[in-house]
């Protein structure tokens, strides 16, 4: 039987179970019917229990109608609702004390279905009876199986642990041994592991051979006291103990269903999972995250004798336990193992120990180097599936901790020089976006040079991916800044684990370098890819981050996009790009205005250069005269073409060809609007929209199409003089 039985769907698992469960449900139906009738009279169940608690030893069993009637009663209650704690105590005591011989024992044990909890005292007493009475061996086994099945429902375990030695003495009983080992496994704590017990188990092992139950118990002993016992579990051995729920399974399910989910939650079965060792042999096994193991060589004994008891991380199985033991958790033997479990990651977040982090970084750095840099025979490509999983795990750890490991950062700087840009691209770019702020004097060589080479030689998708990655990188840097910036001395720690401090101006320089670099990449990239709208969209994503650095992240830095980005966006054929550009320009304006206001207010000059204001104003003028005023190609604006050339092109009114009506991105809207506005009109004259009234309707129409960026841009930059009548706006220059 499988180690894990899912209770909820086990009813349809096999025909065998089916018959059992249907039988029991028939029975429970009958029981329920009778029960209703009985409830009217005085409660006969209480009387039945009284009979079993009072019945004298030696009472004959055969032909005893009282016994039969009462037991049937108890069984009915047990199979329908489960037995209350006191009933469990009484029935267990009755059975194990053999007051009516061993014959009813099995029958009683089988009906011990707890309704809520099992009182610990009852179990302890029963264990004691195990030593006193002459209970047949099969019944003894059944009893232990029952304890294992209801283990999680026992209300407390302290007394059971107190008689650990007593229970341990049963391991010598050959038939009981597997079940006793399981029970001991559930009860073992560090104090219970003693040299003589280890020796006893080893002695048994030499007698019985390699038995899984002995190994599982011994491996738990090893977890607690690795200095006493060592072993390695063969990979093909099944992990965990089997469970012994079968005699009670259907009844438990029925009771559980009836009693609702509050019992169901406590019904997690008493079986344990052990660390699975993959059986597959690999040539390069460095990608395996080591298993959590406790430290063998503990620190000096002075440390142990002190009252501070440590808990190995292996023993922590839930978040609640983690919280409870946070102050005394012992780090595992191999720090790399922390990456393997989500619970351990929670703890890693709190680890302050520098050398522990160094250990982790040694391991991680070694693994990455061996797999991707040193591996001569193309290791990374050979087992890319494993590499993929490993990097994904690493990435999720990064995301969880919200920062990268320094060894993966150092690795990336080297790897970027050898990377072909396609091997495990999403993962590598993901790792790259997590690197902390690089000093501006080094950023070029470490990041920009290799990235530039990759960028210009790779496909459109790589370009988009890199743009997204750099955007994420910038976002993380800005977030670090806003989180760690200390208000007084303007120093920021870049990373909670490293204490490398950077001055604010140093940080600003790095950010500026990054933004400018992306600007260069984007300009050339747009040119190479023919202003591909997918790529443009990633570029605009980046500038949506850049335009808000002051207000969102409190960094007094505003960098304008280069014209290589601005014009392709302005003249894009899709309205969304133009709309996003308008939004970005709007945000720039809001940021610049508030920066200026703050500068005036605090008299603290953080100096956004005149050049930036100039660039911004220039862009706004261009946008307004292009989209609004129909003054494209005027001297002094960004785009200039020779007069003759424009005339030669035979475009009528070329100066208006990029206004909101004739702009290739908005033309279809203008046509649509024209048709709606003058449905009867045969000949289409788009210029008629230019008149004051239809123009404002047209704008309304555009805004209702969801072009909020445009709307905000217009509202913040153009003050319309409706009285002027011709729809001419006026730019606000600062």
């Amino acid at each position, binding site marked *: 039987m499988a180690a894990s039985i899912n209770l909820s769907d086990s009813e349809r698992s096999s025909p065998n179970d089916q018959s059992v469960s249907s039988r029991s449900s028939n029975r429970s139906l009958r029981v329920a019917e009778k029960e209703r009738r009985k409830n009217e009279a005085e409660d006969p169940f209480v009387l039945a229990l009284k009979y079993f608690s009072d019945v004298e030893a030696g009472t004959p069993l055969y032909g005893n109608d009282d016994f039969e009637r009462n037991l049937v009663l108890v069984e009915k209650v047990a199979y329908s609702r489960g037995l209350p704690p006191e009933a469990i105590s009484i029935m267990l005591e009755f059975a194990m004390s053999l007051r009516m011989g061993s014959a009813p024992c099995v029958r009683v044990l089988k009906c011990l279905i707890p309704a809520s909890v099992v009182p610990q005292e009852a179990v302890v007493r029963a264990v004691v009876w195990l030593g006193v009475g002459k209970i047949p061996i099969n019944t003894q086994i059944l009893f232990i199986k029952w304890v294992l099945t209801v283990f999680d429902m026992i209300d407390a375990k302290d007394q059971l642990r107190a008689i650990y030695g007593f229970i341990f003495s049963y391991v010598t009983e050959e038939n009981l041994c597997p079940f006793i080992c399981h029970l001991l496994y559930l009860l073992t704590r560090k104090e219970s592991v003693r040299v003589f017990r280890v*020796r006893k188990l*080893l002695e048994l*092992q030499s007698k019985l051979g*390699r038995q899984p139950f*002995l*190994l599982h118990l011994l491996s738990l002993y*090893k977890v607690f006291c*690795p*200095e*006493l*016992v*060592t*072993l*390695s*579990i*063969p990979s093909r*051995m099944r992990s965990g103990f089997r469970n012994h729920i079968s005699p009670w399974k259907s009844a438990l399910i029925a009771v559980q269903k009836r009693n609702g989910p509050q019992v169901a939650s406590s019904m997690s079965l008493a079986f344990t999972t052990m660390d699975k060792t993959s059986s597959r042999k690999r040539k390069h096994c*460095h990608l395996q995250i*080591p298993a959590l193991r406790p*430290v*063998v*060589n503990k*620190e000096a004994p002075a440390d142990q004798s002190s009252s501070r008891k440590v808990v190995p991380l292996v023993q922590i199985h839930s978040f609640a336990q983690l919280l409870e033991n946070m102050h005394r958790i012992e780090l595992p*033997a*191999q*720090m790399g193992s922390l990456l393997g479990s989500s619970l351990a990651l929670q703890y890693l977040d709190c680890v302050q120990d*520098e*050398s522990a982090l*160094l*250990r982790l*970084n*040694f*391991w991680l*750095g*070694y*693994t*990455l*180097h*061996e797999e991707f*840099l*040193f591996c*001569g025979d193309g290791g990374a490509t050979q087992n890319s599936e494993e590499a993929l999983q490993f990097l994904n795990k690493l990435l999720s750890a990064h995301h969880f901790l919200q920062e990268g490991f*320094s*060894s993966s*950062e*150092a*690795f990336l*700087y080297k790897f970027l020089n*050898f990377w072909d840009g396609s091997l495990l691209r999403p993962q590598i770019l993901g790792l790259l976006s997590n690197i902390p702020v690089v*000093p501006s*004097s*080094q950023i070029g*060589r*470490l990041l920009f040079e290799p990235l530039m080479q990759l960028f210009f030689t790779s496909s459109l998708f790589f370009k988009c991916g890199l743009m997204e990655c750099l955007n994420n990188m910038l976002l993380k840097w800005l977030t670090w800044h806003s989180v760690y910036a200390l208000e007084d001395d303007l120093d920021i720690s870049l990373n909670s*684990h*490293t*204490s*490398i*401090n950077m*001055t604010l101006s140093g940080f600003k320089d790095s950010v500026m370098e990054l933004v400018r670099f992306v600007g260069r990449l984007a300009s050339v990239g747009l040119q190479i890819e023919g202003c591909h709208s997918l790529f443009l969209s990633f570029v605009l994503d980046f500038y949506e981050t850049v335009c808000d650095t002051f207000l969102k992240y409190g960094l007094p830095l505003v960098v304008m996009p280069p014209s290589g980005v601005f014009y392709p966006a302005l003249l894009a054929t899709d309205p969304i790009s133009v709309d996003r550009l308008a939004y970005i320009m709007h945000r720039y304006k809001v940021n610049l205005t508030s920066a200026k206001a703050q500068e005036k207010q605090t008299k603290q000059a953080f100096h956004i250069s005149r050049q930036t204001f100039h660039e911004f104003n220039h862009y706004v003028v261009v946008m307004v005269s292009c989209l609004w005023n129909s003054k494209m190609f005027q001297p002094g604006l960004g785009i200039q073409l020779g007069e003759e050339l424009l005339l030669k092109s035979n475009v009528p009114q070329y100066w208006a060809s990029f206004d909101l009506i004739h702009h290739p991105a908005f033309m279809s809207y203008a046509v649509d609007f024209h048709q709606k506005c003058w449905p009867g009109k045969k000949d289409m004259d788009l210029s008629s929209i230019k008149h004051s009234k239809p123009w404002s309707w047209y704008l309304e129409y555009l805004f209702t199409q969801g072009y909020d960026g445009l709307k905000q841009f217009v509202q913040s930059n153009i003050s319309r003089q409706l009285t002027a009548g011709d729809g001419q706006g006026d730019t606000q220059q600062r």
Partner: protein
Amino acid sequence: MERLQSSVVRTPPNSTVVQRRSKSYRQSYRSCLGAPSRLGLTPGLTARRLNSSRRALKSHVITVSHTNPSLTIFYVLLNLQRETLNGHVFYPVLFLLKEKVNPEHLALLVKTEWRLSYVTPLHQFRHTQLKRYSRQLSAFIAAEKQQGVAMEVEGSQSGFRVSFSVVQGLAATDDDAETVLIQIYSTPVFARQDEPQKSVWSGWLTCINGNPEYLESLPKGFTCLPLFGGSGAEVLTSLVKSWFQRTFDCCFGPLEINHTSLQWLAALWTNCHTESNLQHLKMIWTLPVVPPLQVTYTVNPQDAWELWMSVRKDRLERTEEEAEAGSIDIEEVVRFVQGLKSHFYRHFRLDLSAGNLNQVSTTLGSAKSSGKIKISNSRYMITTLTLLTECALLKMPI
């Protein structure tokens, strides 16, 4: 950057790694050079050598005052690629063994072919706990050998016996951790009662003249023994490695001896010819042609010596310090190997520069590019191990 460079006064740019100890755990980014040449790095990258003694070394330490420690680290990382062959590289020729080295231990180290690995620093390794480690490792081996049978750690074990010992006096400087020797004995299957246990595996962990900057940058609790050599059954090697990994949270990676290091060794051994006869200088080159061509090139030791002498720098050119250290310059090594190559070309019209040096052997020792080395004369033990320690440190991930 300006400041950094200007501070490098009369210092060979490649003599030392500049590291500022920050509180953080990112000590060094140097290891980018360990990558094999297939990745596009020039094979001569590991040619950086450290100076012989700490006293001499001090004059080579680049002192940088900079607010950001990582800057200097980056600087080193980036400059490594350039500082390959053009700078002065000093290499101490001869370290004589101190007398206190146990001759029995020394005898174990020579005349065995070792397979090399690099090891990241060991956590919580104590030279005082070797007895305990012996017991643990033997129990571990026994448990691994018999999968699924538990072993008592403290109890007496049959089968394998492990002994850890310290090779006193091999360490060259105060920063070097003492060398640790591991031997595994086993009782032969059909042994008589009184027959002694046979040594089936041996290995060592060492650090000779390790880069003091790196060693000092490690926090307390770490022991840096970066060079591991093992000899014996592969199974036992991997068991020993995995026990170390689990116990001291370290990692083992294969250590190849690259082209440049092999050339170094060839020059080094040739340089010793007057003291102890080489008998022959044998080199194996592989040339990337189809079918692959292997060239075994054996040189008369006297001829090699004369060639070597002819390429040696004029003594007068050397500064006092260099002469005192008896150092070899990488330029000399390059010229020496170039001389050997052109000699070969003259006779066979085959340019060995197109190929790779795979193996060098003399009576003083032999080395293979796969990372196997045999040191036959204990006099040159330290010198060779210094070179290998350096190679191992260059492989460190951080």
